[in-house]
């Protein structure tokens, strides 16, 4: 650490005063933005422990302003005293939660499989389907990114009704796969481009087939990229609301739809709302902290040459 400290003091030899001002400014700005990022999360979590009075009076700090209470979590059936009792709300919540898990994991996995294969093919071989060459095919895949969900939503509503996929998890998985496929292909193309072709050539000389070389040589090297693409796809699918709101009603409803439909006749129960919101964002918050490296890798793929 001390080495680093001397490093920048040397490069910023001006006056100690201006150095200190710039330090104060930098850390001030950092703390300020950290506050902006964290306060809404703090507010959500603390509100789930508030009673009605504490919410309407805008109390902020637990134990000082207000006495925390398990109220919000009890209404979800997830507080310590109610967790072993039967609770219809909890069953409902768990069902929605499982729907979210299944659809996002399913869609991300499917997208990773077909997306990686396509990205590999596009980086390694020359294709020609009628008058479509590699560049055209790549563009076709990536151009799906600009397709707004609203364009597909209504036709899919009608088609899914005909096909019997309305309000099913499979239907959602297919749509989510389509949604994240361009991003997966984008990331994986970048990954495969960074792997030298000589590796596969050596494998082919050693007698492996094309697919053997892909599975035994290339895939292990590209695994970090696949993890990155998978996590980014997970995040997008987990948070998706538009398709889920239009195409599901009772069986396949996901967490965001459940969160959005929480208005009762007597206004909003802020404590249970906050508990639900906390539960909805918690999994991704954990993933974000634990796997931040992969997320950044996924987001910056292809951005910097």
């Amino acid at each position: 650490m001390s080495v680093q400290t001397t490093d920048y003091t040397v490069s910023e030899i001006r006056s100690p005063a201006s150095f200190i001002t710039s330090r104060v400014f930098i850390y001030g700005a950092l703390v300020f933005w950290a506050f902006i990022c964290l306060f809404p999360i703090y507010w959500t979590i603390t509100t789930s422990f508030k009673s009605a009075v504490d919410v309407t009076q805008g109390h902020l700090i637990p134990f000082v302003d207000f006495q925390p209470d398990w109220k919000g979590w009890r209404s979800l059936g997830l507080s310590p005293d109610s967790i072993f009792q039967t609770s219809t709300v909890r069953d409902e919540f768990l069902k929605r939660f499982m729907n979210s898990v299944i659809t996002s994991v399913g869609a991300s996995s499917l997208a990773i499989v077909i997306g990686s294969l396509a990205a590999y093919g596009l980086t390694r071989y020359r294709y020609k389907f009628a008058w479509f060459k590699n560049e055209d095919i790549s563009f076709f895949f990536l151009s799906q990114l600009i397709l707004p969900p609203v364009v597909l939503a209504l036709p899919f509503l009608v088609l899914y009704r005909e096909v019997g996929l309305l309000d099913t998890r499979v239907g959602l998985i297919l749509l989510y796969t389509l949604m994240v496929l361009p991003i997966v292909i984008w990331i994986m193309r970048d990954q495969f481009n960074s792997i030298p072709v000589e590796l596969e050539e050596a494998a082919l000389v050693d007698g492996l087939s094309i697919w053997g070389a892909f599975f035994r040589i290339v895939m292990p090297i590209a695994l970090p990229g696949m993890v990155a693409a998978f996590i980014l796809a997970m995040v997008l699918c987990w948070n998706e609301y538009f398709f889920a709101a239009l195409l599901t009603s009772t069986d396949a409803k996901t967490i965001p739809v459940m969160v959005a439909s929480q208005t009762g006749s007597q206004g909003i129960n802020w404590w249970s709302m906050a508990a639900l919101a906390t539960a909805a964002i918690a999994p991704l918050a954990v993933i974000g902290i634990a796997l931040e490296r992969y997320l950044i890798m996924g987001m910056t793929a292809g951005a910097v040459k």
Partner: protein
Amino acid sequence: MAEQTSTTNAWPANSAPLDLIPPGRKRLGWALMAAATFGLLAMILLQILYKTEVDTIGFETWRPVVYAYVLWGVAIGIGQVLTRGEDGQRALFLLPALLFTIAMVIFPTLFGFYIALTDWNLSSFSGRKFNGLDNFWQMLADPYYRNALFNMVLYVLAVLVEYVIAFGLALLLNAQIRARKFFRVVFLMPLMLSPVAVSWMIGKSLMEYRFGPAATLARHLGWQNPAFFSDPITARISVMILDAWTFIPFMMIMLLAGLQAMSREVLEAARVDGANAWQTFWQVTFPLMLPVSVTAVVLRIIFKLKLADIIITVTSGGPGGATDSVSSFIYREYRDRSNVGYGTMLAMAYLVIIVVFVTWLLKIANRFVRNVN
């Protein structure tokens, strides 16, 4: 490596060039593909006949046709390998994604163009009937749709402000600071959170008129009447802020990667030449960052054009449709009025506008980057 050369792993076609594939195998492949295609077409025909009540054999839903399509895809894949050997194996990498995307995009979009030309309300009993360009004329006269399009222009322009903030944050994170990883994780957090949960907890609770801390803060700062969503302009700005909060980290991370990839020598050289921090930024850092910046802004604009969930949950387009994005407007057109035909026409028009706009944007972006460098 020795065990990998065992013959069990080697595909027979591997060593055989294209012309060495036995004609019998080729014929088998062609027959398989022909049979599969015939089967799929027969299936579709049968189902159409059944649905139009010409014959009585068929299925209740169209789902068997989906299965038939999947089987057809598998058969085509096998056929490719049988007839074209190694080339076929290569095509196999691309085929699943290609068949999937074509089925999921091309067909629904074409179908969408057809729906757009019908008068079809799911809640009325009359069913759908073709009405030509009526929806289109109705759309041109619809002030709410025009307003939604205008809002999209405003929302897209807000990206520039987001870009400035994101650039500032990236510079901060790239400075010599302690606890960089901590700040990076914290700054990334908003991107991970579900926009719906966020809009509830920020838009409806934190910015609540009576008790929300944001409103309390605004009162302390001298804004007497901090109603974030009641007049059109403030409501639009509030929506922009909510959306910016979630998506600034996205641009920030890309810009940060760009900053970290920049070579230290250039900056040192500028400093040796006597440039101060301000000059260094404008004459070295910013031009070098231009390609990354353009990528980040273009991607962000593409995401911005899909903006819907925040508006649907927080304002439902209000007050009086002032904050509507195109997506949220169409969403309500369907949810409140079940008007599939008209809604689809709006969506298709939006698609055309977006495609033209993004093509233009990419062209401009390309030229911009090339001119400066």
